[in-house]
């Protein structure tokens, strides 16, 4: 009877302990100090499907950071172990994945997926379980409207504000060198058109006359009639609210139409060091501007180390490094920085610490407002002699902006 009682008490204690441990793991991630095994970080990444190229780039960034940290003895003495699962670019699969990572695999921390589409549901799952959610991609307006305090968009600014730096640059020019007229060709998606509209409103307020503004649907295969209409109006500035294919098509069409504006800015596409010259012809890149966070040759914190590690692991040159990898790497940098500063590595600490400081990363200095919207500005890069160079803001620029843009190379 006595033995039975003892067994029963022991059973109770074990159950209570197990419940406690499980509660800690699912409630607040890794317990500070208490955990001594590897630091397990879970992320759902699009390894297949529409976003697979960017998804794989993000996976490379996470992996490079983990390798780097582990080579230096891990975080607070714990080796980093990544658990990366594929969401096939699906917003339902991404929810299942994070639920499994948190409840089944009991990961200590979670890192974000690719795209706004997947970040929205994923960040809500993380919020439910009290996990900090650092996302290297997915900076659409809808994400910030969720008002999640556990969410951090790891880029310098919300995506639709990434054209601000271009506006600032134009307005820094003497009045007689600024463009007088502008045309806007905008892709109808949650980033591109709002981004270009943001630029248009600011430039109109500054007196730049809009001669053309059209939004085109994503299934538009041929932009030459649109660019033909723009060319006929000969604006000083052409702003492309673009993604990829359409960015290339805009440039090709203007080359074929033999119209070269004095200034040309594209929100995306032109900032791809490898793809852009390949698609539009290297000779036609000269003078085109785009926003960037990380760029080849950046001297921001950890950039050189990241670039060298990337090339060592995946080959190529600095020009072939995908900026999504840099953004993912920055997510890891932030976690390392929080651990170094606080001596702790749990979700509550990460959330409160990130909110209260400015953090140097390879994307520049990052800080956030309460809803996870970054408070900084993108950099302005420009194609000069076949290379993307940082040209603005002047304080960190590698080269002077080339204006007006030279004629097309053909």
């Amino acid at each position: 009877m006595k033995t039975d009682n003892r067994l029963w008490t022991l059973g109770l204690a074990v159950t209570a302990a197990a419940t406690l441990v499980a509660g800690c793991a699912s409630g607040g991630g890794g317990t500070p100090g208490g955990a001594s095994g590897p630091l397990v970080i879970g992320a759902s990444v699009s390894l297949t499907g529409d976003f697979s190229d960017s998804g794989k780039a993000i996976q490379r960034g996470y992996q490079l950071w983990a390798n780097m940290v582990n080579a230096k003895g891990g975080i607070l003495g714990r080796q980093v172990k990544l658990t990366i699962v594929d969401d096939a670019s699906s917003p339902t699969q991404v929810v299942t994945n994070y639920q499994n990572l948190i409840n089944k695999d009991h990961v200590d921390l979670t890192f974000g997926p690719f795209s706004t589409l997947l970040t929205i549901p994923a960040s809500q799952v993380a919020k439910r379980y009290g996990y900090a959610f650092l996302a290297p991609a997915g900076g659409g307006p809808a994400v910030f409207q969720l008002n999640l305090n556990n969410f951090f968009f790891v880029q310098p600014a919300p995506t639709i504000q990434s054209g601000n730096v271009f506006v600032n640059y134009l307005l820094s020019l003497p009045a007689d060198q600024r463009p007088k007229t502008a045309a806007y060709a905008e892709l109808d998606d949650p980033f591109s058109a709002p981004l270009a509209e943001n630029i248009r409103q600011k430039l109109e307020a500054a007196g730049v006359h809009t001669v053309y503004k059209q939004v085109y649907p994503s299934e538009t295969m041929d932009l030459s009639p649109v660019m033909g209409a723009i060319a006929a109006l000969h604006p000083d500035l052409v702003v492309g609210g673009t993604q990829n294919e359409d960015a290339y098509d805009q440039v090709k069409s203007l080359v074929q139409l033999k119209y070269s504006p004095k200034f040309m800015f594209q929100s995306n596409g032109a900032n791809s060091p490898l793809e852009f010259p390949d698609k539009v012809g290297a000779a036609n890149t000269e003078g085109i501007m785009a926003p960037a966070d990380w760029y080849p040759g950046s001297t921001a914190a950890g950039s050189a180390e990241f670039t060298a590690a990337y090339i060592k692991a995946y080959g190529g040159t600095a020009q072939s490094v995908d900026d999504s990898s840099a953004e993912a790497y920055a997510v890891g940098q932030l976690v390392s920085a929080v651990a170094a500063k606080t001596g702790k590595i749990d979700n509550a600490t990460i959330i409160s610490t990130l909110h209260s400081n400015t953090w140097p990363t390879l994307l520049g200095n990052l800080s956030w407002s309460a809803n996870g919207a970054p408070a900084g500005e993108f950099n302005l890069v420009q194609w000069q002699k076949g290379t993307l160079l940082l040209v603005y803001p002047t304080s960190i620029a590698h080269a002077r902006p080339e204006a007006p843009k030279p004629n097309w190379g053909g």
Partner: protein
Amino acid sequence: MPGPRRRSPTGAGDDHVHALIQGVILGVLTAGVYALMASGQTLIFGIMRVVNMAQGAMVILGAYLSYQMFTSLGVDPFLAIPVTTAVMFGVGVGVQLLFLRPLHAEDKSQLSVLVTFAVALLVEGLMSVTWNTTDRGINTGYVNASWTVFGYQITLVRLWAFLLSLAALALLYLVLNRTRFGRAVRASVQNPESARLLGVESERVAAIGYGLGTATAAAAGSVYGMLYPFNPGSHYDLISRLLSIVLLGGLGSIGGAVVGALVISVSSSIVAAAVSPIWSQMTFFVVLLLVLLIRPRGLFGTTVRGAI
């Protein structure tokens, strides 16, 4: 130096007229490429009553083959066409024998939509694995060249593509009207049973027909790759356009495919240049619906079978 400032030749800086005429020129030249893709589509329907959802994917596959030959071997995309068409002819014959021949005759048309869509997805998947999902483009030295004629730009690649399409369509026309094979095709289309009784091997005709249709996709693909960036998913936008062209021209009519391509390409180009690119996509379907309301069998479709 910024680009040259050009004024419209119509005088008084009438930029809108200039943009409109430039739009028409672009539309006509682009129509050639679409006509080529759509002629294969309409041929396949004419011979086999197969609604071929895979034609767009075959065009993109043709573009990839041409891209590969250009980047690996330095072969000019126009010169690569004989090779890519031959390869794609084989692919087409294979698809017909493997996937379409087993279908029962009575519900072949309906089932073919699903089967060829599955083929399109299969081809898309294989392309994603082989070339991944990054956008590709074929950039020859002359890809962005254009001639200035009266202040308007004639893109060289589009012009060559247009001429190539005319040549290919003429060839197709000759094959169908002047050869024994062509007679067999037309016989099979008009009355498959009688044709078979008279010794036409309709299975062979169908295989060669599907092969030919796919081969035209390859020729169009080479040009497509020079004109637009493409990725394995590009075929979705293509197929709706091709089906519209074929329906507009009349199912099974190659001449109809040419006219359909012209109407649709020019009208959407004009609307994109003069009104809005948003409505440009709609123009397609508005034109199509109007034609089908007035003439349900399309512009050149006939009520009798066998109008190739």
